């Protein structure tokens, strides 16, 4: 590995990290319209159960295509869902960014997510391994697929009024 290559790798890591932090900031701020704009059409937002990879043929916590993502956001925003009106507040950090693969304009990034939610003055802590498949575009990235594997995804959870 040459020094130049290393610099390129670090630049990509930095650029991808900045993108994921900005996504995390949108999700904590519940700026969902902006978040929808980050996506490539046809991508899936998936929260699997256990270690399944065949998401289409398995039960997931969610496995949203374009329409489901929009319906989900509409549900959050319209004010008729008691669990999301008001929703829990969240503060999250993403870290442990690793570029797992680069294939043409596609970049696969793994990260660790820690999220704390607060509702009714009761705080809950969640942790997840996250896999983003990003597509490099002129001005940055778009999300092609995102897989969030919660710890204990096949155990007892609570209801979520927000996105990971």
């Amino acid at each position: 590995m040459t020094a130049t290559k290393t610099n390129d790798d670090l630049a990509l890591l930095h650029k991808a990290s900045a993108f994921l932090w900005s996504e995390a900031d949108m999700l904590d701020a519940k700026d969902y319209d902006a978040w929808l704009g980050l996506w490539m059409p046809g991508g899936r937002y998936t929260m699997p159960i256990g270690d399944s990879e065949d998401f289409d043929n398995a039960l997931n916590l969610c496995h949203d295509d374009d329409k489901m993502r929009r319906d989900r956001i509409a549900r959050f925003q319209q004010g008729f869902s008691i669990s999301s009106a008001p929703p829990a507040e969240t503060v999250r950090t993403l870290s442990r960014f690793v570029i797992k693969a680069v294939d043409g304009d596609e970049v696969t990034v793994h990260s660790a997510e820690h999220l704390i939610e607060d509702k009714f003055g009761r705080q809950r802590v969640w942790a997840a391994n996250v896999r983003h498949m990003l597509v490099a575009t002129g001005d940055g990235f778009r999300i092609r697929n995102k897989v969030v594997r919660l710890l204990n995804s096949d155990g007892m959870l609570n209801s979520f009024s927000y996105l990971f």
Partner: protein
Amino acid sequence: MLKKEKDMSLAMPRFRDLDALYSPDAKVATPMYEDADLFKEEMERIFRRTWVWVAHDSELPDKGSFKLSNVGLEPVIVVRDRKGVVHVLVNRCRHRAATVCEVKKGKTSSFQCPYHGWGYGLDGSLRALPYPEQYGDDFSKDSHGLLRLRTESYAGMIFATFNEEIEPLADFLGPVRKWIDLFMKQGGGFPIKVLGEHQFTVPMNWKIQLENTTDAYHFPVVHKSFMQSLDGDTEEIFNFLETGKGYVEDLGNGHSVMVMIPELVDLDQNLDEPIPERFLELAQELREEGYPEDQVRKIVRAVGGAGFNLNLFPNVSFSLAFFRVLTPVNVERTDIRHIAIGMDGGPAAANRMRLRLHEHFQGPMGFGSPDDAEVWERVQRGTKGGEALSVLVNRGMVDEQQGPDGPLGHISAETGMRAAYAMWKRMMSA
């Protein structure tokens, strides 16, 4: 003073009078949701004495298949032995009480205690222990097997009980059996198979969930945001409170049924009707896979589930297209499982559709369950105020009729809750 408080139990006057807890005019007293001593009595008098659902047959596909479950507060292992017989065993070593299994589901040939190595067969019998001679010659392995519960099943639904005296499961279910048979038709000609489950815990008393499965009254309010995410035709179907063709019926022994969509009660009927638009794509896919037209129609009609909810006392219900299971944890906490089901050996495309429909409403990220969980928690929070007030489950008593199997009320009547509380009272006074 301390001692007196500690002795508070059913023996104390306020629990001796069960009418004060659930009155003849269908009002539930606040302590029913928050009294820890009453909860202990319920676990003893109800969950240890009746049939409790533990598993579906398809979760134990092979010899040696097992899953962990609960009967009330007690952790159990449900396991299929080498002869195919299903056993329900308390998950506790007979030596020093360690659990013998902490794997949620899987396949094994035996259970071995991790502490001192006592080994048990799939039927719970004690097979071997290290250095047995230190127990003397009269030690009997036969009397040191894992505690085994009485186990019976109906239509693949496996129930267990600590009560050796209780009536057979079939009698306990009574008229519920015909509804279970109807529910299982959503296999579309294939056996029903568990496809996965959503699990969430809610800070509420278990009876708040028990009240919910045959409560149509809440649906258009709590699930408005779900309704809004449906296409027009489907929204019309879920608008059962407005159309008012359904009903709720008390089926005895605490069980009840709520018919929401009468035309979807028997999925083998009306197969000639036009296929709803939302299933057209699936129908075409099945035709292209080579399924004959009559089978396509049967599968497509079954894929959305049945048109009713069936609530069994005390811990399982059959809700449109899934099983709902409640497990009491403590007086103010209950674990809920929403089990997705599909067609065993059926077309993958149909099962995929069922999975997506399940994810749409159910579970921690569903468009429905989080709102249910929120209002259930709000009930628990609300009971902290106005201790002297009661919870009303008297809706629809005004025009309740006698149905084929019991009292029958308006679709929005609280007939199912009254069925459950009548059984609650019967068991708590026995």
